[in-house]
């Protein structure tokens, strides 16, 4: 048994949110620079130049990259040998969100009731927490400040298994086509196939934690990722939808076994401002 203080969790969560809203992960910056090189449309090259300039200014001046500093998504891998002391884990995480959003001058974008009064909770809590219990004695904390614009472009469906991979490709491509500029392209597309509907969306979101450009270890899935990416970039949407050759930077597909009758497919859309960070305690 290993003990981890709840207060340490709070401090790490606060730091991760504050930092991630000001600095894009290095792999994302590389992907954006590569997109700038590949893009054929001069208008979209200008957009990508400004996006890259924005990344520099955000870090230098400590102004958040985007004004939508997101819902505070937290994904945990909790080793079963870990014992959290001096407080409970979820309270500690929410306290970290509260502190990080306040100290970092981040926008508080959570309302208490989704379809009634919609009163702002004023501290960006509650966090959206997912926990996997894993072997070992470590606690891995991944944070994703998830903007509303791209999240609103996410979809879930259950397709007929008989139609196989082609209907999956069509579903994803048609969605990207329909949402166009709304998702703030160039996007990262998280796709979850299989499981039950709830699991499908979860793995679609978890797919966004993957390094950009890192293919699935499963060759069949990696081939599917390449094919969807090609079809999406053939749409011509381009950066901010102004017409161009780079609409997506990556397609990350995760799969799970599923029921004989089902093929759930979930898409979790991520804008170019793909903020994520992790720490291991």
């Amino acid at each position, binding site marked *: 048994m290993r003990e981890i203080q709840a207060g340490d969790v709070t401090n790490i969560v606060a730091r991760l949110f504050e930092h991630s809203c000001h600095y894009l992960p290095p792999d994302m910056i590389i992907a954006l620079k590569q997109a700038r090189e590949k893009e054929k449309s001069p208008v979209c090259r200008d957009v990508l130049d400004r996006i890259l300039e924005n990344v520099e200014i955000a870090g230098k001046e400590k102004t958040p990259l985007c*004004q939508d500093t997101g819902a505070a998504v937290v994904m945990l891998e909790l080793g079963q040998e870990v014992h959290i002391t001096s407080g409970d884990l979820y309270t500690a995480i929410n306290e970290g969100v509260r502190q990080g959003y306040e100290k970092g*001058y981040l926008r*508080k974008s959570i309302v208490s009731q989704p379809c009634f009064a*919609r009163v702002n909770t004023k501290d960006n809590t509650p966090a959206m927490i997912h926990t996997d219990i894993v072997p070992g004695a470590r606690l891995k904390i991944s944070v994703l400040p998830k903007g509303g614009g791209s999240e609103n472009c996410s979809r879930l469906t259950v397709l007929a298994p008989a139609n196989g991979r082609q209907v999956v490709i069509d579903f994803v491509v048609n969605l990207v086509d329909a949402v166009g500029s*709304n998702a703030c392209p160039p996007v990262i597309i998280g796709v979850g196939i299989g499981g039950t509907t709830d699991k499908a969306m979860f793995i679609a979101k978890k797919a966004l934690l993957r390094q950009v450009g890192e293919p699935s270890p499963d060759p069949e899935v990696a081939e599917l990722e390449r094919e969807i990416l090609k079809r999406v970039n053939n749409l011509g949407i381009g950066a901010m939808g102004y*017409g161009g050759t780079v609409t997506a930077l990556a397609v990350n597909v995760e799969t799970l076994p599923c029921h004989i009758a089902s093929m759930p497919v979930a898409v979790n859309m991520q804008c170019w401002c793909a903020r994520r960070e992790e720490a291991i305690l």
Partner: protein
Amino acid sequence: MSKKITLPLTDQILKDLRAGDSLLLTGVVYTARDAAHKRMLEALDQGKPLPFDIKGAAIYYMGPTPARPGRVIGSAGPTTSGRMDAYAPRLIAEGLKGMIGKGSRSKAVKDAMMKQKAIYLGAIGGAGAIISKNIKKSEVIAYEELGAEALHRLEVENFPVTVVNDIYGGDLYEEGKAKYQVKAP
């Protein structure tokens, strides 16, 4: 090459703008998101005045992050405009001339823009840090209790935007996409 535009927008200015044009805006814009729009329409329904003169005005669909001490404003990029589609035609009928945001508009909004002469301008989504540098003054003039969704009056200088929908029915999203689309063999 960007055209420099001094606000407020007039029919004379709008007639020379086409979808795809890059502009640098200088002057006053007002910010409003969903909640502020809802209140403005309630005010109109009740025959009450709007918090600012809508005739010739431009609304920026934006809710900033809090300003650090000594700064004018925090991160200040556009939000998705489609959520304001339900409210926009009414405001255009009242004299609104410009909307700044990102993402496509409904047919009703595009029709209203052509009929009443108004334009829709795209700002770069997610680029809130760089856009904040073009904002020289910011004050909340209404609905303060809405927090980030409060209605702000902003003074902008050389704020870079792109014409998405002009008064002639031009649509950059459609035209740009058609140009770069690769049709399946």
